[in-house]
């Protein structure tokens, strides 16, 4: 059986700085896998390598056994790898409906249709509406994205990734900056994703990590420090020392 997503001895150097140091990480099919680590541990660099924004100095990345180390970003999305961003990356003047429908059209192969009309593609419109409904964006589907409240923009961030119907989803701090009152909405959505989607969650919030993840990888200074089940990691003295500190005492 292939891993859903796998990195082999991945190295990323920026000049003399080693941001990713021989990382071999395996995400099992259907995994609820979290990647944690202190600031500057290289978590986002690793996500950018997996998503194809950065090209690794050394090593390989496999998606379902297929080598995607040098595949462009869009090609990776086409074969089922999607991501969200830590800092919102939305289409400011477009509405959530337009944005999601672009992603859906692209996925079903109509993204380069020059003379087609969305009004004559009801499947795409319906699917987009369903995604927006699921992420509680139906009310604001026609508004400008940059005028949405932050929590809604965060949900849109997730909606765009889901519209590509990923097999593997990289979530880069999905709840970052979301006020406590709206937080549970995002968490519920993440929790309700089907098991066919393998998820790698990058997160700072320990409550979220332990409520969601079954497997946890701890990254320190660009290298894997420890990997294990959520219980093991929570119980590990060294992890407490280097990273968790007080976070699990309470």
């Amino acid at each position, binding site marked *: 059986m292939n891993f859903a997503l796998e990195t082999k001895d991945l190295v990323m150097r920026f000049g003399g700085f080693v941001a990713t140091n021989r990382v071999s990480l395996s995400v099992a099919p259907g995994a609820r896998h979290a990647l944690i680590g202190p600031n500057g541990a290289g978590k986002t660099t690793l996500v950018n390598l997996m998503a194809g*924004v950065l090209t690794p100095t050394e090593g390989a990345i496999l998606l379902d056994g297929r080598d995607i180390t040098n595949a462009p970003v869009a090609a990776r999305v086409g074969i089922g790898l999607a991501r969200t961003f830590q800092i919102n990356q939305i289409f400011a003047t477009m509405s959530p409906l337009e944005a999601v429908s672009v992603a859906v059209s692209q996925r079903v192969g109509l993204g380069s249709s*020059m*003379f087609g009309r969305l009004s004559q593609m009801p499947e795409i419109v319906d699917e987009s509406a369903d995604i927006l409904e699921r992420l509680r964006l*139906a009310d604001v589907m026609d508004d400008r994205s940059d005028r949405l409240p932050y929590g809604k923009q965060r949900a849109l961030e997730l909606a765009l990734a889901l519209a590509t119907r990923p097999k593997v989803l990289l979530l880069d701090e999905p709840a970052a900056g979301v006020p406590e009152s709206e937080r549970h909405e995002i968490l519920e959505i993440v929790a309700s994703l089907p098991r066919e989607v393998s998820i790698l969650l990058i997160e700072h919030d320990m409550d979220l990590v332990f409520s969601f993840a079954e497997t946890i990888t701890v990254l320190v200074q660009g290298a894997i420090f420890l990997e294990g089940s959520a219980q093991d990691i929570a119980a590990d003295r060294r992890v407490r020392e280097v990273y968790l500190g007080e976070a699990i005492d309470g």
Partner: protein
Amino acid sequence: MRSATASAREKARQAVADATRWQTPELAFWAVAIAAIFLFPSRHLLLNEIAIVGLFALSIDLILGYAGIVSLGHAAFFGVGAYTAGLLAKAGIGEPVAGLAIAAAVAAAVGFATSFLVIRGSDLTRLMVTLSVALVFVEIANRFESITGGVDGLLGISMGPILGLFEFDFGGTTAYCYSLAVLFGMFLVARRLVRSPFGTSLRALKENRLRAGAIGIPTARRIVTIYTISASIAGVAGALLAQTTAFVSLEVLDFARSADGLLILVIGGSGYLYGGLLGAIAFALMRDALSSLTPAYWMFWMGAILVALVVVGRERVVAKFAAAVDRLRGSGS
């Protein structure tokens, strides 16, 4: 829950249907453009020029307003189209529509070949690269004097009747009708294009290229495609000028033409297709009015107005104007 989903779908379908519907101001615009044939019978030459410049600005709007690609060298494609049409007519292919089609194809080929230069880089590098490409074309046209006529221009173009039916006249009536028809045809294509999934994906890559890639849009390929289409339309505009004036000079490739195209978009606004057309009208009217007021200094005032427009922001100027109109209406009723 079920009914909620149904209503979300309904809302989405409604929004999508509304997006492609023709708005009243759009219809009014084209009605006025056609009415101008009868309203200003002595100004057909000027109207013809406005239609051509408007089409050229429209071609820039497609890359700037929709894909976010800045260019200071679009005159290269305008010029390629103009020379193609001119040379064809000289070579005996005097039927304008055929000439237009060939000019469009040649300009598209040149656009495709140079599109790879604008895929990467910042706005500044794109400005420099497009500017340089245009300069290269000026030099080529200058160098091959035996073909292009060099600085003297391409003389002795004689155009046949359009589709074998309509002869060009001195007053420019046929010319304006012809250019307007081509402009409208090209506009329809552009309008359809920008509202298609392809067009929406262009806007996505303009707004956020990182995210556009992350939802699977092949951004480089999109840029190549729209740049090629835009070059082709610019070529058609150039061909129209060559055909309706029966003359081509190095001026068609001039830097000033590229810059004017951008200025017109600044005046009219980019990203909604009418900006180039309205801007072309405003530009021509301002030039006309200013040059009759101060024949020697009209460029100065033109510049001053443009600076004001950019500094204050077109949206605010338009908003103020609209508010003033509202007030007048309010006090009148």
